[in-house]
């Protein structure tokens, strides 16, 4: 397995407080990694830095072998659009737009023509069981449906890595199960790399590998599916 994303001694200070205290983490191409930890342990902060949404106070991020220059804002913007897909606890769908319009927004930025974008968005929504909801506005959808639209949007530009910050945090158990199935299926079928933050151990156990964050440091690594890591080369 190849390394797709690497954090090297990542530190993050917020308001004089060290939130991340030197994180070293290798993320392998095609793995489903989960990050667990108590509330306030720094999981989201780490995820934002891995997704190039926030800049670290110290350390390096290496994406597909390339060291990220956090000063090059333009490059960061392009990388976020092309390489990453984000799913948050809240869906952040734009209320003025229908489901399908929300999904094409990242594609339009990537200069996909509108017709192709609409076609791909429609397909994605269909695959996620939202055939009936394609032209509905977010307020007409249930929480689970909204989150599935958000996942479709994250997948819009065929990202290399999906970053999910407690994607089921706001959902009931049925929808939670549904969203987890979608993510697992995505990882299995399309080999999409997924990094998911959660504080539910049960969900973490379903992923390939889990790391635990305590007070801004990685304290534990659990490999849930050892057979997937037989070819790991360091």
């Amino acid at each position, binding site marked *: 397995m190849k390394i797709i994303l690497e954090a090297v001694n990542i530190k993050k200070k917020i308001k004089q407080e060290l939130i991340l205290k030197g994180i070293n983490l290798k993320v392998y191409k095609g793995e489903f990694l989960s990050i667990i930890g108590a509330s306030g342990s720094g999981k*989201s902060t780490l995820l*934002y830095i891995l*997704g190039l949404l926030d800049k670290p106070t110290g350390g390096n991020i290496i994406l597909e072998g390339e060291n990220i220059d956090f000063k090059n804002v333009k490059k960061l*913007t392009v990388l976020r659009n092309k390489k990453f897909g984000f799913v948050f606890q809240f869906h*952040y769908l734009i209320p*003025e737009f229908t489901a399908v319009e929300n999904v094409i927004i990242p594609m339009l*930025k990537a200069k996909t023509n509108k017709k192709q974008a609409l076609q791909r968005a429609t397909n994605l929504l269909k695959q996620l069981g939202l055939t009936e909801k394609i032209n509905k506005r977010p307020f007409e959808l249930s929480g689970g449906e909204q989150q599935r639209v958000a996942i479709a949007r994250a997948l819009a530009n065929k990202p290399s890595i999906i970053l999910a910050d407690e994607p089921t945090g706001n959902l009931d158990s049925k929808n939670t199960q549904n969203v987890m199935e979608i993510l697992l299926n995505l990882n299995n079928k399309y080999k999409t790399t997924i990094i998911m933050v959660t504080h539910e151990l049960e969900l973490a156990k379903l992923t390939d590998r889990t790391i635990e964050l305590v007070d801004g440091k990685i304290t534990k690594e659990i490999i849930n599916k050892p057979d997937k890591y037989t070819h790991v080369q360091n």
Partner: protein
Amino acid sequence: MIHNIFISSKFLIERKRQTAVALLGVAIGVSAFIVMTSLMRGFQKYFIKQALNINGHINLKVEENNDELRIVKKAFNPEKYLFVVLGSKPKEKKYKISNYKQIIKMYSSNPEIIGISPHLLGTGMVVYGTKEKNASLIGIYPELENKTVSFKEYLKSGKLSQLEADKNNIIIGIKLADDLGIKEPGKKISIVSPSGNIYTLKVIDFLNTGITEIDKTRIYIHIKKLQTILEKPGQVNEIIFKIKHPEDAVSVAKQISLQTGYKAESWQEAFRNFLSLFRMQNYITYIIVFSILVVSAFGIFNIIMMTVLEKKKDIAILKAIGYSNIDIIFIFTMQGLIIGIIGGIIGNILGFYILEWLETVKIEVEGIIRVKGFILDRNILYHLFGFIFAFVFSLLAAFYPSYRASKLYPVDIFRTGG
């Protein structure tokens, strides 16, 4: 960029009422600019045109050049001495242009000068029945006058030649006739000369220039007759000139002044009070219109600012999925621009139809000028400027909130759950 326009217009359409109010503000500002500019310029251009048509471009008057050193210069060589005159009494009052024939001859071959007409000016009292009025009496050579100003054009029945045919014929201003109670030509009036002699003259035509001041005071008489009335045989005390390029009147007047030794006044000097009044009028109009535009710009500013504050979550997610700061500025500035452009178009159409309507209105307007209805100076440029103002103001109004939006840090929103 098309994707940004797509997003902007969606945002705008969602706030129909606010957008409509802002659009209305811009439209009113733009149409007010177009209508007020057309009205004002129309009035001013009309006034100047009429006044020039009847007054000539340059007036040569008997007053001497106000050279305070003229007396000392006669006694001492001005090249050798430096003089300071602390005050001089105008002692050498001239009352006629004695060499007027020579002056006319001198300029009649000048290609810059199209017409020259000598005048004898005076005042007198006109009596008609029991009515008495003071009037300015203008003695003219009818043919020369008509070559120098558009005199015939303003006569009610165009009987200029009868002034020559019978020297007892006169033409009087239409408002003066009204004041005296004269309704039709053919009436006889009396003119009392300064020395007390009474002359009976026949009104053969009325002068109607539309400029109240002129129509209310002037009486035109053949110059020979007026010389008799005023007991100034053969005298001339004013010469008016018509020149090829009226805009050059100032410099031509200066040249005539120097060459003749008399004070030559250009129309720009003669009308300087009006011209500065017009300038003032323009300033006031532009201040009013500018204020309307500023208010509508604030409307736009408000909408965009509110949208930005309400849409923090949307801005955060747009930035997270790869929209750059410039995209965000564009999305929000575009909303202001759309309001400005559509408001500008509506304002142009509105202004156009208000002007169309004003043109059909026939009311008697009486002030400095008398006209039926409004005189409009309609110009595509005013429409264009109105549109450009709307564009620029909305751009300026929308830019700051849009810039603020672009500076939003998405992580701050995601942390708090937005």
